């Protein structure tokens, strides 16, 4: 069912915009370019818009939505708390800091890296940033092999503040062009969509999306506690490392491409748990699909509601996400102290 929802939003999102494309025209473009039909039942401009602008943008939304949904679900499972979210515990801002450092300082290493791996360079930089922050937060929150959730969240706040301060500092050193880039990081946008960004993101999203479901059973067991998971035969140490690596990979790459898009990782798994089940074997793939659908939809709204200008999508997701976040806090509170 979620697959249908996703395909539907992809189609709608492809059709709506400054240049309108009807559903039949969309089909015709697809059929023509895949060689299924040689009828050209559309205008050349429509095809150009669709292939060069709209399709990469929709695909980018799908990839980032899936990445955020899956990593949110995995991180909540790992930290045993439905409030843990890559943004809240500092992973996203760690990734941002690394990306901004790369942009502003235009370090030699980064240039060499760009020469070496091209478009993957920024993804790689923010993946490293995300990875380092996760390890740091984790180190802060770990004691005797157990995660202390309060410390984790507080550590996240501290890291967010620290990363924010450094990013702020860097803006003073930045040129105008660099500054525009940095603003884009802090708000999040899919405006940078193009085929190269889509391909740069693809492996960083596909690997976690397809690998994390194999850890779903372990994530379920972890909900009982680390010792209990171990009693059930889960190699907690290995599983934790894998989850951290995969989740930060997804978060880091999406931050590199689209900046921080908050709350998707928080609300998507929550919706799934509320409506279907808490079983990670369904939540993980479900979060990929629903995250993709919701972000594509949010992006559609972001780019049409104030057309011809564009709303940063981060504003939109925060407006929807923050109230949901408050709602979760309240239900959690009521559950713990009835």
């Amino acid at each position, binding site marked *: 069912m979620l697959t249908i929802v996703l395909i539907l939003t992809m189609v709608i999102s492809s059709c709506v915009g400054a240049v309108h494309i009807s559903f039949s025209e969309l089909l015709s473009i697809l059929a023509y370019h895949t060689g299924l039909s040689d009828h050209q039942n559309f205008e050349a401009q429509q095809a150009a818009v669709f292939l060069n602008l709209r399709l990469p943008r929709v695909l980018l939304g799908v990839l980032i939505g899936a990445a955020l949904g899956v990593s949110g679900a995995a991180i909540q499972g790992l930290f045993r708390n439905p409030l843990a979210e890559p943004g809240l515990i500092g992973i996203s801002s760690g990734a941002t800091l690394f990306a901004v450092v790369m942009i502003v300082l235009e370090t030699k290493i980064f240039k060499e890296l760009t020469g070496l791996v091209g478009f993957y360079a920024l993804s790689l930089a923010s993946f490293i940033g995300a990875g380092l922050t996760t390890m740091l937060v984790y180190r802060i929150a770990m004691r005797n092999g157990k995660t202390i959730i309060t410390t984790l969240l507080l550590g996240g706040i501290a890291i967010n503040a620290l990363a924010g301060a450094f990013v702020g500092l860097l803006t003073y050193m930045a040129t105008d062009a660099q500054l525009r880039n940095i603003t884009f990081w802090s708000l999040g946008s899919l405006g940078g969509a193009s085929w190269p960004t889509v391909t740069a993101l693809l492996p960083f999203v596909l690997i976690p999306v397809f690998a994390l479901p194999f850890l779903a059973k372990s994530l379920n067991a972890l909900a009982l506690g680390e010792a209990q998971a171990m009693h059930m*035969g889960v190699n907690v140490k290995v599983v934790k490392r894998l989850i951290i690596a995969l989740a930060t990979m997804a978060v880091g790459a999406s931050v590199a491409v689209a900046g921080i898009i908050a709350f998707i990782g928080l609300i998507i798994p929550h919706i799934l748990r509320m409506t279907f089940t808490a*079983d990670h074997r369904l939540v993980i793939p479900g979060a990929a699909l629903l995250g993709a659908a919701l972000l594509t939809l949010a992006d559609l709204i972001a780019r049409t509601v104030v057309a011809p200008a564009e709303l940063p999508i981060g504003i939109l997701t925060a407006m929807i996400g923050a109230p949901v976040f408050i709602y979760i806090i309240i239900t959690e509170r009521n559950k713990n102290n009835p």
Partner: protein
Amino acid sequence: MIKVRGLSYKAGSKKLLDNLSFDAHKGELLAILGANGAGKSTLMKLLCREIKPAAGTILINQKELDNYRLEDLAKTRAVLSQHNTLSISFQVKELVLMGRYPHFQQKPTAADFGIVNQVMEETGITHLASRDYNTLSGGEQQRVQLARVIAQIYDSPNACLLLDEPTNGLDLQYQQQIMVLARSLADRGYCVICILHDINFASRFADRIMMLKNGKKVAEGLPIEVINCENIHETFSIKVKLMECEGYNCPLVVPATILK
């Protein structure tokens, strides 16, 4: 089944367990009694392989605990821990199915679902199957957790079951239910080791009792052999009276002094 020899564990310079040796057999319920800080929980953690001993060996079915692969160990022994919180709301049947996790890869088989239903029936929680675990009462939660643990070793007749204060915080009816279940598991052939606080429960349900103090064994044997005023005074530092009671083959223990 379980053979423990010369087991010691230190935290800093303090010996939590000191050269402890004992056996637990197939089809037997061994109760472990002791005051707080006697080393019961440390012993349980060592038996679960949560922590590693400073010295000594633990053999399960003649194989050293350390030599088990985690997955195989999970099929050989199941553990009911003292604190069972659930961070995410699962349904009861999903939680019981988790007991089968060591037995299947990605998809549970029909046999796994069969065992889940069977266990829920036996533990009397079938009517709770679709309930959210976090909405259950403490007693119901404990029965669900026990069902999960039983499901884990349901088809492993030579398995061991480690229960860490399973009746903690439950009312009398639930305490009774849990102990009757533990007893029936031992009768079915499992080796059950159970930490208890209630001496009378231990003597009523256990085949043998081991008493610990300061990481050392005070006494070990049949309830009728070890339940006496001296052992209990030695273990718990309290004075008790023993009362013969009809229908029990072991005297009941009651406090000797009543404060006014």
